[in-house]
């Protein structure tokens, strides 16, 4: 009896999963009409409260303006969403997939693009709000981790590695100026620095920052990893980590799970220097009562990692039109200005403010970026992300060396 019920249910479901009509962003009115009533499953990392709250706000706006329902599927690792699409493709589910929109960049974007798992041809540059995007001055919008985006993902926000410290405990003069300095500082202050355990995105990014500073020939990083040379060229990184772990928080026997977890550790004084990919993270945390208002930001004068994060649509998404409308809305001046408010999220915009209409420009100008946020001029040079294969290899090597504790 149960078997037949299950079979009937399966039939019913497959009947419902009608192949979606191809959608054309050039016919925007058509897209809007089709999107109305759709539910968009946005697969995005769910480990940060303010980001989750922002997406709830977006859901409210999308419902009101476009009749689109946005459901945030909270991931602890974006790779899981990639896995879902991969599994669906393997199972032959080429339409009616469970992921409509995915928050992505770097290795995950590269993996999906390379396997043909993304909606193509490129659609992002045909979205109405693309006209405001600052692709001229922000090269990472069109080239993600050395991989050409080709419109297969819509830019959503800008990221730059920024460090935070508490002026109540630490003197500005003692701030490290580069990775080598940081190690020296950690050796003088044992137990007060750590990084999220790779493959956490921010943790792996810290490894890349060190690698960029330590590798003899940084130009190698712009090309895919050469397996034979890998061990030699990454030697300085792992020597650095070996030394760092000895003096790290908990003697490097465990690591914070991700960057939000480091905020409470800073508030409690367990850690003295933490970092994030969002320059406004500290201001945002101060506004939310997570960090004391004595916390300030700093970067390395010679530069820190910078990149763009995107929204991509899997090739088999169920709600294509809804996904396009969502991506376009999240790129809109309204959504971007709201996002950049440190009381909300504080994530820097991908738009060029001078391209915006007067009213929107005023909104951006009126934003109080917060007491602990560095001005764009103080953020220092941006270091380019290495080819995604480096991240994969470094994470693998990290696991091999450090998984087994000491």
């Amino acid at each position: 009896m149960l078997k037949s019920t299950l079979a009937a249910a399966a039939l019913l479901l497959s009947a419902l999963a009608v192949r979606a009509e191809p959608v054309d962003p050039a016919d925007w009115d058509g897209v809007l009409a089709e999107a109305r009533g759709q539910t968009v499953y946005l697969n995005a990392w769910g480990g940060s409260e303010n980001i989750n709250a922002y997406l709830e706000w977006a859901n409210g706006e999308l419902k009101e303006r476009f009749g689109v329902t946005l459901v945030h599927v909270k991931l602890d690792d974006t790779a899981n969403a990639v896995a879902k699409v991969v599994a669906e493709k393997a199972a032959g589910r080429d339409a009616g997939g469970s992921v409509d929109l995915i928050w992505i960049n770097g290795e995950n974007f590269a993996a999906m693009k390379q396997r043909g798992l993304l909606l193509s041809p490129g659609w992002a540059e045909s979205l109405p709000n693309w006209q405001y995007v600052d692709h001229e001055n922000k090269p990472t919008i069109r080239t993600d981790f050395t991989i050409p985006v080709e419109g297969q993902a819509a830019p959503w926000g800008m990221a730059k590695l920024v460090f935070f410290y508490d002026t109540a405990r630490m003197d500005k003069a003692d701030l490290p100026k580069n990775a080598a300095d940081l190690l020296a500082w950690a050796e003088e202050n044992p137990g007060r620095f750590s990084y999220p355990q790779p493959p956490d995105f921010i943790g792996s990014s810290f490894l890349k920052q060190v690698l960029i500073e330590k590798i003899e020939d940084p130009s190698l990083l712009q090309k895919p990893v050469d397996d034979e040379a890998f061990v030699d060229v990454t030697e300085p990184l792992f020597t650095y980590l070996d030394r760092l772990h000895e003096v790290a928080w908990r003697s490097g026997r465990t690591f914070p799970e991700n960057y939000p977890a480091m905020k409470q550790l800073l508030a409690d004084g367990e850690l003295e220097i933490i970092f994030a990919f969002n320059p406004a993270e500290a201001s945002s945390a101060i506004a939310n009562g997570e960090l004391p208002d004595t916390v300030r930001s700093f970067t390395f004068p010679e530069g820190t990692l910078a990149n763009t994060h995107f929204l991509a649509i899997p090739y088999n998404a169920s709600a294509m039109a809804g996904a396009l409308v969502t991506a376009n809305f999240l790129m809109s001046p309204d959504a971007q200005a709201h996002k950049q408010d440190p009381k909300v999220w504080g994530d820097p915009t991908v738009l060029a403010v001078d391209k915006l209409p007067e009213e929107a420009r005023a909104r951006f100008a009126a934003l109080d970026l917060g007491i602990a946020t560095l001005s764009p001029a103080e953020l220092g040079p941006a270091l380019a992300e290495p080819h995604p294969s480096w991240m994969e290899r470094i994470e693998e090597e990290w696991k091999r060396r450090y998984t087994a504790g000491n």
Partner: protein
Amino acid sequence: MLTRLGPPLTIFLLTGPLLFGLAGTLLPAFGFLPVLGGMEFTLRHFEALFDAPAIWASAGISLAAGLLTAATSLLVVMVFVAAWAGTPLFARIQHMVSPLLSLPHAAAAFALAFLIAPSGLLARLISPELTGWHRPPDLLIVHDPMGLAMMAGLVAKEIPFLMLMTLAALPQARAVETRRLTTALGYGRVAGFVYGTWPIVYRQIRLPVFAVIAFATSVVDVAVILGPTRPAPLAVRLVEWMSDPELSFRYLASAGAVLQLAVTGVALASWLALEKLAAALTRRAAGRGRRLRRDALARYAALMGMLASALAVFAGLAALAVWSFAGLWQFPDVLPQNLTLKSWVRTLPRTAEPLLTTLLVGLAATFIAAVLAILCLMREDETGRRAGQGALALIYLPLVVPQVAFIFGLQFLLIMGDLLATLPALILAHLVFVMPYAYLSLKDPWRAFDKRYDWLAAGLGKSRWQRFFHVRLPMMLRAILTLLAIGFSVSVGLYLPTVLIGAGRLTTITTEAVALASGGNPRIIGVYAFFQMLLPATGFAVATLVPALIFRRFHGMRV
């Protein structure tokens, strides 16, 4: 007719997912996974598994967790019951501990984490006055490599479980009479109980003990919150592999699930050996007439163990409650600098959907389980045959087989049937775990029912279903509501089946809470822990209050 369907349907619903799931896990482990093109037998994936860094360390932690958790909780419960049963203190502690039974494992783990961490409530209470700490000490307590924190979290949850099982078995063991006898012969309280009563009690709680071992060897949620990270326990790593974008990892995860089966098997086999050893030692001590009258140390140690495990969880939950209202709260402040409703205001709207899923799945699974349990028991009445040891073992099967080992395979099957992340699939998965508890909690009250009421009604010419609905059901209302409350609390607490079968689209309060654990924001975890506490507690409150209200005019039906 309907009752005849009961037992086979129950067995099918219990063992079907289990067997199909196990097959779905075993085949990929040996290279068969047609959707990925795996068509031939190979041991390659096991080679890859054994090459994975520190895989034996992971397996070792899982094995140790299973044995130590079971041994510690059982020892505390045994000595505590031996030493204190029948005293007023016993009743009081029993009342204190029993609410913990319904608390999801993840919530207990959170509570413990926020209590014992270097920046946790305990350290805050005594710092800096006693310790001189102005900053949290750099101590590895939570996530310690040996998994002690994780085991402590498990013990705190398993003690109430084994306690309840022991209490249910005590009446049949004639504990009071035996105690009088052993005391008269000059045995200490603990020794007398262990020699005289325990062997009979233990025989009855053996399957629950096995369930504890199996659960602790393969736990994921508690391990994520409290357990070691480098390496993590086996089951945690398996779940990571299962969701790796590199599909070949699914083979590895399946091979790992086979290893998990072996680890749980070894743990159970070691336990059987330990049982033999313990029995031999007891027999020898008893044979030599060891009275062990000076057992005060053991008695108070067990009391402390009992108290500490319960108080730790309550204190941790209290800390979480404060966190949910906290603004800035820096070490070593005992209380937050300011209180705010912000966390609640921000989080509440977000809890609506997981709450709805939790309720829907929990109620549906529990209701189905209740109907099946009643049908099975009615069938027992008809045939006059009771479920034997074999059938009982079958019912315990989903609790004794590690969850990862068959949920992986079930997930593959559901993907193929396009049923993954649908409500019916999730309800079915929950049913597998709710059903055993439903049957076990109803069977004793059902059998204790005075059949003469039934005969009386039959004599008045009532049909079988009339008798059932008008006599038996109302009179057994309390037991059935208790079954529903227990089943519901089991469903609320289920983590792994929900994560894998819900596939992130159907989330419950528990999966959301564990997902948030990684963000480490104690304010939000506090809000979710509140709901984790509230839902099962509401179930039990309903189970207590409704009969009290309905039966307020029936003198004979009051407790």
